[in-house]
Every structure is written in structure tokens, then in C-alpha cells.
């Protein structure tokens, strides 16, 4: 029933005199709680860390340089091979071009034979240097 009927003290006059029912600390109090910081001061020093990091960096850059050397050697090998086979490819293309050019000059002479004062072939620039034909179509059989 009411709290006063359960917890009453004999001879009690009012509810305000009821014995207390509280949650409190155990006898002797609680044990002390540590709240202070404990960050240890061990481990590598600043200079040690700096040296380790810069050592790793230097070794890494050295490896980069070594790798670049190897890659440059590979590229040099490729370029040397291309330089070696360039003349034969150019010679073959020259032969093909000369025969095609002759056919073209014959065609031009045939087309322009009735035009007075037309110098067939070599109707190109005045600088004296040879320039490849700029007809916009290099190899019609390919393109």
C-alpha cells in the first residue's frame, strides 16, 4: 500500500519522519578513480623519425632513378631498331613513289596535251627544293 505503511517507524507522527531509503556509497566510500593522463615518453626521437623517413625517401628516389635507367635502355633499343630499318623502308617507298609519279606524269601529259604552253610535270614550287606532292591524297590504295 502506501510507502508509509511499509516503512513506518513505530511512534512516527508524520511522513516526514520516515527512515530514509537512499542509494549511497558503500561504507568507507568508493575506491579512488584515476583520471590523470599517462602518455609514455618512450619511442623514437624526432631526429630518428626524420632520418628514417628521409632515408626511405632517398632509397625510393634511387630506385626510381634505376628504373628510369632501365626504361631508357629499353627505349634506346627500340629506337635503335627503328633507325636501323628506316633506310630500307624509305628505299622501298621511294621505288614505289617513283613508279607512281611516272604514271601520274604520263596521265598529266595525256590530259593537258591540248593546252598550249603547259609544261607537264614539275609544275610545283619555285624554291628549287623537292617537295612531296600536296594533292591531299597520299596513297589512294591505302586510304
Amino acid at each position, binding site marked *: 500500500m502506501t510507502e508509509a505503511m511499509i516503512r513506518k517507524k513505530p511512534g512516527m507522527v508524520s511522513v516526514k519522519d520516515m527512515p530514509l531509503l537512499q542509494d549511497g556509497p558503500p561504507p568507507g566510500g568508493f575506491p579512488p578513480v584515476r583520471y590523470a593522463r599517462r602518455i609514455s615518453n618512450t619511442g623514437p626521437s624526432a631526429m630518428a623519425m626524420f632520418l628514417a623517413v628521409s632515408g626511405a625517401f632517398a632509397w625510393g628516389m634511387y630506385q626510381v632513378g634505376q628504373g628510369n635507367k632501365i626504361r631508357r635502355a*629499353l627505349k634506346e633499343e627500340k629506337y635503335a*631498331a627503328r633507325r*636501323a630499318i628506316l*633506310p*630500307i623502308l*624509305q*628505299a622501298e617507298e*621511294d621505288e614505289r613513289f*617513283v613508279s607512281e609519279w611516272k604514271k601520274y606524269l604520263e596521265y598529266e601529259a595525256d590530259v593537258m596535251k591540248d593546252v598550249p604552253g603547259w609544261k607537264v610535270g614539275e609544275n610545283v614550287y619555285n624554291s628549287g627544293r623537292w617537295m612531296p606532292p600536296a594533292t591531299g591524297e597520299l596513297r589512294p590504295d591505302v586510304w
Partner: protein
Amino acid sequence: MSSAVDATGNPIPTSAVLTASAKHIGMRCMPENVAFLKCKKNDPNPEKCLDKGREVTRCVLGLLKDLHQKCQKEMDDYVGCMYYYTNEFDLCRKEQEAFEKVCPLK
């Protein structure tokens, strides 16, 4: 790809064959190559350098035929590897070493 030789047994100068024998060409046909390039630098007109071009073609095709006769199997393997890997030297080291062991660069 069919084999690297045509009907009469001469190697066809495809890109794979040429890059496979590029080191040999660079070493043994160097005078012809240099003469042709000098002529070209002088005058880029193809008609003026036709004879030197023929020298280059003769030297290189003869060299290819010679290589093919001396070390046929290794050259075919190397050319096949070059064809498969599109003229990438680094992927054909094994075949390259076998080829250069039988047909040394001198």
C-alpha cells in the same frame, strides 16, 4: 600469319622480320644505310637517291636471306614472337637470346 618466307625461301621484309633482324641490319648494313641517309639529307627527291636505295635493299635482303639460312628455326621462332607481341623487344628476350646465340652479332 603464314610463315615469314615467300615461295622461293627468301624472308619477306615484314615489320616483324625487320625488327627481329634490326640489330644485325644496323651492324652489317651500316655503310649503305649511312650513305642513303646522307643522300636523302642532301636532296629529299626520291629519284636522286634511287641507286643508293637499291644498294640498301640489296644489302638488307641479302642479309635476311643469309640469317634465315644460317639459323632458320631460331629466326622463325623470334619472328613469330615479334609478330605475336607486335615488335616488343622486352617480351621476346628468350627467343632473342636463342637467336643471337646461333647467329651472333659479331
